[in-house]
């Protein structure tokens, strides 16, 4: 079980450009934590920093577990599946079983694989080549691969993007159940604010100008805040996009 995830004064720059600036927040164990914000805000960068794939210039990420080392499951944003490699969905999920050293699966591992595929509703896809699956099916297979390692912390980067509403709900229900059944803590990046409103316990709204964390109702219903951040996406009679200054966007840390 994850005990706590804390981001402390995180700063990430790419080629001198400030992407994440003095970002601090906490995630409680077992919660579903949504990250929203416009494209290029640094959402994926944040997840990669938590994973350790990116080394921040300043600040730190502390991940505390109960006793064993915290296992992090990550479903990245872009995953090109080579249709020329038609491996089956169950083999694809099983790729995530890396703790053993034997070339074949132990009975326990087979059981775990079966359980996860049942859980993610991918059992009936088990023998299908991964290249032939639909978008929603693929995302569930990716999720299964991340879950089969029994992660304490799950990071999902736009796993519901490009899915139809039904598949989105199915995906979010899976994450919710994983949290409920195994105490998984989940951070998910999502553009569908309705999904965020329904499933998130807390929300981080991220933009280049600042950030804000809080309960979904407080963030999502703050009309002024939301329009300032997402201004670029609302099409207002073709005028230039207004770039908000620091003072227009209330900068805030973690509300205690």
């Amino acid at each position, binding site marked *: 079980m994850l005990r706590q995830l804390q981001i402390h004064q995180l700063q990430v720059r790419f080629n001198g450009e400030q992407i994440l600036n003095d970002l601090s927040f906490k995630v409680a164990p077992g919660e579903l934590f949504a990250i929203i914000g416009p494209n290029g805000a640094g959402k994926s960068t944040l997840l990669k920093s938590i*994973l350790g*794939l990116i080394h921040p210039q300043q600040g730190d990420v502390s991940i505390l577990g109960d006793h064993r080392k915290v296992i992090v499951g*990550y*479903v*990245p944003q872009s*995953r090109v599946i080579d249709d020329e490699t*038609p491996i089956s969905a169950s083999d694809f999920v099983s790729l995530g079983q890396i703790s*053993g050293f034997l070339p074949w699966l132990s009975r326990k591992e087979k059981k775990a694989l079966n359980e996860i595929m049942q859980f993610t509703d991918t059992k009936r896809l088990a023998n299908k*080549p991964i290249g032939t699956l639909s978008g929603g099916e693929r995302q569930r297979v990716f999720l299964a*691969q991340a879950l089969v390692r029994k992660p304490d912390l799950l990071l999902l980067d736009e796993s519901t993007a490009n899915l139809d509403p039904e598949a989105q709900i199915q995906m979010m229900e899976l994450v919710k159940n994983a949290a409920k059944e195994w105490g998984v803590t989940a951070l998910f990046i999502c553009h569908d604010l309705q999904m965020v409103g329904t499933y998130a316990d807390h929300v981080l709204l991220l933009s280049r100008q600042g950030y804000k964390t809080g309960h979904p109702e407080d963030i999502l219903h703050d009309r002024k805040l939301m329009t300032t951040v997402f201004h670029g996406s609302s099409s207002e009679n073709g005028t230039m996009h207004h770039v908000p200054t620091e003072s227009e966007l209330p900068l805030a840390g973690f509300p205690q």
Partner: protein
Amino acid sequence: MFQYDFMQHAFIAGTLIAMMCGVIGVFIIARSLSFIAHTLSHIGFAGAAFSAYAGIDPLLGLLLFTIAGAVGVGQLGVRMYRRDASISVILSLALGLGILFLSLGNIQGNYSRTLLFGSVVGIDMQDIWQIVLITVLVLVVLAVGYRWLKFDSFDQVGAQSAGLPIRLISIGFLLLMAAATSVTVQIVGALLVFALMTVPAAAARFYTQSIFGMILISTLIAVLSVWFGLIAGYYTNAPISFFIVFFNAISYFFGMFFHRVRERRRVLAP
């Protein structure tokens, strides 16, 4: 046929090498490294020619050159080297060097032919022991590193996400390819290493969707092709390499046909 020592040796050596090529080939194909395999075998050719010129054990020269080649290729970058033109340059340079060493060393045409096209007649017990040693080494490393290598080969993004050291895996695999190439070149020749290392694995993908299944089928095709080559070569006096390549090509095209038919059936099925 088996009353001759050289045929016994050829069968032992050929079977071991085919097994190794069949297994490693699955990962070569999954990692899209066919062309690298081809290049490494030419680097091996240069190494063997160098050995003949310098008067050292052929395997030593082969290993020296292919390992240096693998490290060099690894330095070119984990991703970019697959399509990079520099690989073609390295391949031609290796071929040129090989020809240079052969001429400098005044090597007989016979030996040059062996290096390029392979030979099974000259295998002695010492060669067999070398082959056993390297084959076992390669297969053991593949078995121990199987889960990591499999993850990285079939889903690199996932492997990186799960925190696997993908750079290490990449270099490690190139080194295994170097070792495998070095022993294989001696038997099937530089030009056909490629055929034994990639065609069985490419064919296997048509027959199964399971990774383990691919490894089994690929190994089976590779071993059968070598047996077929040795037997047919023995009775006809035609080059063994031809029969090996022929068998592999048949397996590949039959697999393609089999795959098409099955696909069509699946599409037509309600």
